[in-house]
């Protein structure tokens, strides 16, 4: 194979490499986009659940002090 032929082959190989890299890159980008999309739903503030609950006072810890007869103006 002559020099020109060898260079043509090199160019073809380089182009094939480039195409492969571009495909690899596109796949990575798509993967990243998917993961970002998954994050978007995971961190949706509107969808976050909030529970309401009532907590009773602890009987043993309830303290009553300063008990007094208080005169209140009518």
């Amino acid at each position, binding site marked *: 194979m002559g020099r020109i032929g060898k260079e043509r082959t090199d160019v073809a190989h380089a182009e094939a490499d480039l195409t492969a890299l571009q495909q690899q890159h596109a796949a990575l980008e798509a993967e990243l986009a998917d993961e970002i999309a998954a994050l978007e739903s995971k961190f949706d503030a509107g969808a976050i659940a909030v529970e309401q609950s009532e907590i009773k006072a602890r009987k043993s810890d309830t303290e009553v002090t300063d008990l007094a007869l208080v005169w209140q*103006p009518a």
Partner: protein
Amino acid sequence: MPLPSYEKLGVFYLGREYDPATQQLGDELLYDSRDLTTHAVCIGMTGSGKTGLCVSLLEEAAIDGIPAIVIDPKGDIANLALTFPQLRPQDFKPWVDAGEASRKGQSVDEFANATATTWRKGLEEWGQDGARIQRLRDAAVVDIYTPGSNAGRPLSILRSFAAPDPMVANDATALKERVGSAVAGLLGLLGVDADPIRSREFILLSALLDAAWRNGESLDLAALIRSVQKPPFDKVGVFDVESFFPAKDRTELALRINGLLASPGFEAWLAGDALDIQSLLYDAHGKPRIAIVSIAHLNDAERMFVVTLVTNELVAWMRRQSGTTSLRAIFYMDEVFGFFPPSAMPPSKLPMLTLMKQARAFGLGVVLATQNPVDLDYKGLGNAGTWFIGRLQTERDKARVIEGLLGSDPAGGMDKTQLESAMSSLPQRTFLMRNVHDAAPVLLRTRWALSYLRGPLTSAEIAQLAAAEGKVSPPPAPAAVTGPARAATPHAPPKASGSRPIVPAGVPEKFMAAAGNQGVEYEPRIGARVRAHFVDTRAGLDAWENWYYLAPLTAQGPAWEAAEICNADAIQLLDAPAANATFADVAGSAIAAKAFAQHGKSLADHVYRTSSLSIMRCPDLKLTSAPGGSESEFRARLALALREKRDAAVDALRRKYASKLDTPGTGRARRNRSWCANKSSRASRRCRPRSAWGAACSVRCSAAAAAARSARRRPPRGAWAASARSGPTSRMPKPT
């Protein structure tokens, strides 16, 4: 349906990059929301497109769930309330300018139709539609507050000079700033010179507020007037009060403040929602709010007063927040001229400077917009991480901006001539964006606003808007601490006998203060302090609550179910009754020593049976609301926690993919493609030639990337920046 490419996590879609040489638009310009924590200034002459840019920025923040407080001196930003998802001509019709329609030879209907079409097309050109407008409306509420007027939502500016948070009260510098600004604002409203060194009025009012606030007391104007007449201290500095500010002069000052209080229409300043920053940022259900404080209807002194109070409140609120690197909220002020000047010291300047210097650590982004850079204090400019520079008219303005750009930073390799040239030829809606997180400035063409930009809204139009939209958000939710049940049925008052009953030994007797000191009639009650303990290990809650119970006394004993329950710290009891008081009968059996001792037990039992602490919890984030906190506060806390987690997750993703995407060879493969799927990525944005010209400088970019990584900066975004860094456009490689 996939979201548009600009709809990414934590980024604001502001527009597209613009190449002045080809006059072509490039890639979408996605601004990392976290960059706004280092604040921004927007400068441009009238007609440069400032309003459009800033409205877009606020829209993007709202879509991302970030609330904002906006001070609107002109009425332009109120346009944020004009959002019409269906883009129907009839939506636009009430708001189009009939005069403009007439000038164009069209009927109002025709003009509204044309405007709706223009808006629809404009949005389409920028990849947006009515669904995005709906998304904006769903994400946040827009409320227009009009202090001193009932046109929009009234805002109670003058209800009280509320005592600041203990954190501020215990910080000498912060308290001094707060007092100084409040007094200067009030004196400005009265038209009194507010020199902090020479003005007697300033010094006296400062001393009064300082004394009250140190004791945790709030003052309303009436209390302030009384304090001016009878100060609660004898000396000011080394002088006694009479020598420093004689009673006659103090009365004159009190009369001036009273004149303000008695002026027609003054009640509007006292009505409406309290000036509470958290309630302004989130509605009662925790939905983010864009709170627009419109001051267009006020005179200069009133404007200064409102701006000073709002910014002071913001400083106080900011200091109560935890630190964060995510953007928590935005404070935006349009047309800042006169409020943040370079050399003068109006009362608004100090709190604004404090915000510019300290707000970053708390995730509060400050955005200031003005027509002339000379309107802004240089320290403020120096603290702004992002500059949006639109068309400027005068050489002085350009020189000031260039001085700032070259002085604070190397301006991405651009020299004075290049900056001058860039700024003189900026078309409308085009801005030079200098972001300290990027290595070089970029030219930005702003996107089409989702809101209908129809120009300033008048008070009448704001009232019309409020009526049409029913924009009266529910008041803030009450605190979540429910405590025990309160008095439901009034008990019949005992008969008055006149003389004071004899109380058995061992039964303490106390008296509540009466309004007057003569002819007081007392009724018997049983009072006690209660301390209750609420524990929930699963929720990580361990809280004590303190109450004071005051129950009517019947023959059977205290009626705890009908008791009044007060804050334990607020109750004040005296040891002696008022003079010449009369006393109601008291059942002897109820206060017999043995029976009296049982009352404590019965109260403890009643509290145990009836009291509960209402809390909210979020299992996903493992967070529990603070006892007494509102739903709004809790949801705001959740939103921030979620945003912080999201930002951390996005950063982790960037790190994961950065190494894969930066492998040798892929640099060449980056050519002619949009590299980063997530443009919010700081890491990914470091090297991302977005256009052909950008790709042509990829070698420069790669070299710059390493430097940028260490400097935490992103290299040039696009073609224009690259060409500017490389010199004349003609020497740049041709686009491929």
